């Protein structure tokens, strides 16, 4: 297209985007746009028509465009627009399914498939079974795969024996899309048909019968056809995804035996693992687990780039056994990031003492994520040689946590050595997590050091010391916390307040009252929690005022603390359930349920705008075990559209009705 032509196209495109759809001429201007030579202009016109207010008239006009035989671009754009019209297009399109022109009937079926609304199921089933034109029947079969329903599934099963292979193919694909397993006997004859076998194996993978594994193995061992083997892999992946862990060893044994009969099985599985087809990859993982060939391990890990396959990758790598660990370790720095993540996790579970040298090397040169894996793995080796290398990371903010945890694990065998490196690194300015680790390993003997740190060290270490001391020496911790309440750093004051909550009592109410109005939000939030924890009922009034606070963090903690104190009044609960933050509402609901009177509250919240409040209300009602609550729950179920809230309601109905 010339520069001039491109500019003119852009002008027409922008004009349609900017069109005022409330103008009476807008409809015909957009219909003209459907006929434009530029796909971008046609797209803008199709989208513009969806925005017009008089849907019924627009649908009729679009259906008229569908009938313009020589206007391919306009017809397709009209179809696209109709697919955006939602329920208002269903009946006119169902009517169009009866048109004399099979081309229009096919269009209607295709668009109904895109709309995917159950209202079209019956009409599409009738077309599938009765229309005289093969293309229309195929379109209906494909549409039913998106519309769904029991009628659709059974009709699709019926055409599996139709002599037309194209119809059988679309029926198989739609059954696969609906995840509806047809009878095994209907599928077996199709497994040898070159045109149908891939789809036939896909639905075979949906069938929960023990014979399926044998059929898949027969397909895997088929020496004459790569496509048959790949189709069998697809079925294997599908079948495996539904399988209980206990049944897997038998499946792996059967698959392994079939693959070993196949010449070059490892290289074939290798190429299947590298396939661009995710279904083939899924099956290849199962095949790899059956073969347990260590060389395959890095390739298996690479499949983790497909995020939805990560659980299967982990399961597969775990099958390989410890000998695979070195294979993974050696290839770690060349793996992609997702593969490293998966391999690292499995590696940590596989290591023993003999892995220490390689892991220490990885600590030296690896990137941060690899260093993290190495540190975790070193903690699992149970080797003294792992202690010193880990100590080097205790002052590294990104790795101190994992290194400290690894050292705590190693302290089971080498307590003195671990204590030594923790103490030394604290002297040299380690991260706060190290202090926790030190007390965990060394116990009360470390208190003098903790006290010193609480007075002298950095803000993060001072804050940690206050809490750590209280955990091992409550009275000493309380004393230190009182001092820390006037520390200039909010982080230290917040730590002190948390200690008051954990080991203090009601006598600390005045201190906590002051903390409730501290300048720093961090301290105020800690104080809200602490009031409930230490039972400072005297501060209930302060908390009640905060229930209405617009910040959900404050209101939430106020509700929880009042509930914990056992002084959450009905009036306050009513304020809380009116809060904008749904977590505050749930906290009030749960507190109300615990204190009695929760049923009325829960009934009122069955209609709440947020799905998880409705789900929580359903659970509260289910816990009541009151059968009389069934009718309102059933009513709520009828109008519930959210899947998770619906599940909670179904559970509640089942529990109350004793099912």
């Amino acid at each position, binding site marked *: 297209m010339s*520069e001039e032509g*491109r*500019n003119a*196209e*852009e*002008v027409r*495109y*922008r004009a349609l*985007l900017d069109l005022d759809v409330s103008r009476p001429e807008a409809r015909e201007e957009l219909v003209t746009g459907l006929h434009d030579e530029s*796909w*971008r202009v046609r*797209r*803008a016109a199709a*989208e513009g028509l969806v925005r017009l207010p008089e849907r019924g008239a627009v649908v009729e006009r679009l259906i008229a465009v569908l009938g313009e035989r020589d206007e391919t671009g306009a017809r397709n754009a009209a179809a696209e627009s109709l697919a955006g019209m939602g329920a208002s297009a269903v009946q006119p399109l169902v009517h169009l399914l009866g048109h004399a022109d099979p081309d229009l009937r096919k269009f209607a079926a295709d668009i109904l498939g895109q709309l995917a609304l159950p209202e079209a199921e019956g009409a599409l089933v009738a077309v599938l079974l009765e229309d005289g034109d093969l293309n229309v029947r195929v379109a209906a079969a494909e549409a039913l795969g998106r519309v769904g329903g029991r009628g659709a599934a059974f009709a699709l099963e019926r055409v599996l024996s139709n002599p037309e292979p194209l119809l059988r193919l679309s029926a198989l694909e739609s059954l696969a899309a609906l995840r509806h397993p047809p009878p095994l006997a209907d599928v077996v004859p199709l497994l040898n048909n070159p045109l149908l076998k891939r789809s036939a194996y896909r639905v075979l993978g949906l069938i929960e019968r023990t014979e399926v594994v044998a059929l898949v193995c027969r397909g895997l061992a088929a020496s004459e056809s790569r496509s048959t083997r790949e189709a069998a892999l697809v079925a294997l992946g599908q079948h495996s995804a539904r399988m209980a*862990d206990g049944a*897997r*060893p038998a499946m792996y044994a059967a698959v392994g035996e079939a693959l070993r009969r196949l010449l070059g099985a490892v290289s074939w599985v290798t190429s299947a693992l590298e396939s661009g087809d995710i279904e083939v990859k899924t099956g290849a993982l199962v095949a790899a687990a059956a073969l347990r060939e260590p060389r395959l391990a890095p390739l298996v890990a690479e499949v983790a*780039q497909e*995020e*939805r396959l*990560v*659980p299967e990758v*982990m*399961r597969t790598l*775990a*099958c390989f056994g410890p000998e695979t660990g070195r294979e993974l370790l050696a290839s770690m*720095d*060349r*793996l*992609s*990031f*997702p593969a*490293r*993540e998966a391999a690292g*996790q499995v590696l940590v579970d596989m290591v023993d003492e003999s892995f220490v040298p390689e892991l220490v090397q990885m600590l030296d*040169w*690896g*990137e941060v994520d*690899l260093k993290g894996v190495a540190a975790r793995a070193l903690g699992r080796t149970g080797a003294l040689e792992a202690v010193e290398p880990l100590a080097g990371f205790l002052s590294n903010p990104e790795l101190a*946590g994992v290194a400290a*945890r690894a050292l705590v694990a190693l302290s089971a065998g080498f307590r003195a050595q671990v204590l030594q490196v923790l103490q030394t690194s604290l002297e040299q300015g380690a991260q706060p997590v190290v202090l926790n680790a030190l007390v965990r390993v060394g116990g009360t003997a470390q208190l003098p050091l903790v006290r010193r740190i609480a007075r002298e060290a950095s803000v993060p270490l001072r804050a940690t010391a206050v809490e750590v001391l209280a955990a091992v020496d409550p009275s000493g911790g309380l004393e230190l916390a009182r001092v820390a309440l006037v520390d200039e750093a909010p982080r230290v004051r*917040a730590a002190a307040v948390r200690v008051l909550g954990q080991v203090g009592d009601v006598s600390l109410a005045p201190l906590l009252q002051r903390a409730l109005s501290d300048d*720093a*939000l*961090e301290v105020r*939030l*800690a104080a809200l929690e602490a009031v409930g924890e230490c039972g400072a009922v005297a501060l209930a009034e302060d908390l009640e005022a905060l229930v209405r606070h617009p910040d*959900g*963090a404050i209101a*939430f*903690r106020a509700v929880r603390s009042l509930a914990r104190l056992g002084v959450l009044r009905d009036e306050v609960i009513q304020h809380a359930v009116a809060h904008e933050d749904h*977590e505050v509402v749930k906290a009030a609901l749960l507190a109300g349920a615990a204190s009695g009177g929760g049923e009325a509250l829960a009934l009122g919240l069955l209609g709440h705008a947020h*799905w*998880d409040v409705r*789900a929580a209300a359903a659970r509260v009602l289910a816990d009541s075990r009151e059968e009389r609550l069934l009718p309102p729950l059933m009513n709520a179920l009828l109008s519930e559209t959210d899947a*998770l809230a619906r*599940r909670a309601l179904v559970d509640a109905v089942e529990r109350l009705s004793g099912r």
Partner: protein
Amino acid sequence: MPFDTGRPEMTAEEFRLLRDFVYAYCGILVRDDMKYVMERRLWPRLEALGLTDFSTYYRYLRFDAQRRSELETAVEALTTHETYFFREPRQLKAFSEEVLPVLERRNARSRRLRIWSAGCSSGEEAYTVAMLLLESGRFEGWELEVHGTDISRRVLNAARLGEYGPSALRSTSADKLARYFVHVGPNRVRVRDDVRAMVSFGHHNLRDVDSVPLASRVDAVFCRNVLIYFDAPARQRVLRLLYDKLVPGGYLMLGHSENLINLSADFELVHLRGDLVYRRPEMGGGGGT
């Protein structure tokens, strides 16, 4: 064989709450089939914070005083993605051989070229683009800028450092390795200083259309394998932003498996000899012009 991580499992409700919360913050959608990925990526955060289940972690993100920084950390964990030098070579070849000559002609007067690597992760793509500009030999004496942005501050630090290991270099030829990198350790290289000088990095949430850290428009945007993190409405918003930040006639490079079908007709598809790319049309008064 049972596979048990010994970690708390994320319930469907916890997943939904966390997913919705992350989406509201940055428009990144964690698909239903990625529950396991979310569980795995966030577990280390629970471990680090000493929390025992995902409900508690959700409330931490909502209500703790450290919620803002923790949310950023969580998003970083969820969006860390695969990147390496000279990824998707076919597109890069088409960019070098067919797009850069066009940009050279268009900008001959200003002798200035600006390219945005949106969602640059740890910097490999931004540096790759800078290397391609040098490699082309077309822009001697020009003002060349490559700007990388990402939502994760942690990866930006790595990007600025410019040091990489074998995984990041798995598509880098030996001659490019010799020309554009210096060895800093047995398994580590650093991008040469003159390449690093062409590239700058900044923090940006693509959902936030008002805070793009780019003062003027750019000649090309690389936004490869980033849109996959967004749902359709968020993708449309991001594409609108990219459209606004491109000069008329500027190019948009998406990942090889990405396209704009059903998302945007604002861009025109350009059939190059070696690849397909998108371009903001020359004319038109769309937003931002």
